[in-house]
């Protein structure tokens, strides 16, 4: 007895699972790296873009701990310029829209930071979207 039918069904299921991403992306527009809306009125961030892309989460986490636990709130950027350690006042001052900045990458990479459990996004609040 061969049970060929059962083996084939098993293999088809296995193949479908294995190739899920391929057929899931069928008929979808080709993937584009997220486009971020950059601030219009400021030209530079507290650190360079490359560094920020990889490490902003760590930076924000450090800021939170430093401010809340040590009471210090001054951050010195790579150029020697000083910033207030505040997501709200510093970051979101330039990057005003969570939707058009933060979420673009986070959604694409499926990352759900818990910043927004407490913080609010200025532009969305102003527009009554949050």
């Amino acid at each position, binding site marked *: 007895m*061969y049970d060929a039918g059962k*083996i084939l069904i098993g*293999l088809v299921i296995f193949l479908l699972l294995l190739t899920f*991403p391929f057929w899931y992306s069928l008929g979808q527009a080709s*993937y584009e*790296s997220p486009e971020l809306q950059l601030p219009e009125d400021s030209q530079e961030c507290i650190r360079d873009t490359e560094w920020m892309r990889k490490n902003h989460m760590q930076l924000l986490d450090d800021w939170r701990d430093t401010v809340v636990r040590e009471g210090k709130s001054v951050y010195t950027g790579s150029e020697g310029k000083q910033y207030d350690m505040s997501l709200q006042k510093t970051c979101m001052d330039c990057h005003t829209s969570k939707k058009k900045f933060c979420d673009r990458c986070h959604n694409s990479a499926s990352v759900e930071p818990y910043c927004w459990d407490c913080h609010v996004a200025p532009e969305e609040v102003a527009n009554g979207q949050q």
Partner: protein
Amino acid sequence: MNALYALIMVLALVIIPLLGAGAAGWHALFGVVLPYLAFTVFVLGFLYRVVKWGRSPVPFKIPTTGGQQESLPWIRQNRIDSPSTKTGTVIRMILEVLLFRSLFRNTRVRLFKDETQLSYGSSKFLWLGALAFHVSFFVILARHMRFFTEPVPALFNWIETLDGIMQVGVPVLFATEIVILLALAYLFLRRVLVPQLRYISLPTDYFALFLLFAIVISGILMRYFVRADIVDIKTLTMGLIQLQPEVPESIGALFYTHLFLVCSLLVYFPWSKLMHLGGVFLSPTRNMPNDNRMRRHVNPWNYPVKLHTYEEWEDEYRDKMKEAGIPVEKE
């Protein structure tokens, strides 16, 4: 010694991408060509192996019965360990494949020589270690689907949220990363420390463990220590999925090392013991019902054999039988 061979092989697999993608900068090779190749080898190899198994028939119905058969209606049957129905057999297989039911039975024997006493203790560590490894592995696999889908289906988000539910650190620490490391360490240590296991372990047994270790460690390094830019990585992975490969420049050697090790695993998988993934479904001692005397099983190669027929036999013993008063066919 066997472990050392394996370690050297895995180290070689680590060095190749460090040199190739890191020093020489062959990103397209390590980011596009090899992954496609490895995936193809894996899929075709897996199919080949299963089809090869399937081409041999199961001539006899040989379930290992782990409980009471179905017999008289008032005797309580063990419908899972000695199933006589399709449903029972399917349940037995599900429990075997998903929960490692047989391993759960595991015992450990001890011999007290002075009292000539054997004792059997329950021993569930192997079951726990094996289950921990496999569950973590599949959760990690599911988590990685965020790199291969756009938009990411909610299921994968849920799994990821659940895995990081402790919310330790940034990026959030995944429980499976710790668990898989512990499980792999356990599986490795028992091979090295238990004398009988060391004796039976082949280089390939260590190779699989080391390769998985290397994959996990490179993944963890990338997430927490030598950060990679996952947006660029997703550009690469989605390019692969949509058959429009694109190799962002910023991706570093560590990522290619991780990817190359995964490719190695994919290529190695179909030709190794790792095929137990497919084989467990085809094990005739588990996937057949214990209904032998109810439903006849057909052996496709059953062939006539040389017999000693009653007629021949009676010819040899007729006189003696008649003398003894035993009935015969021919007087």
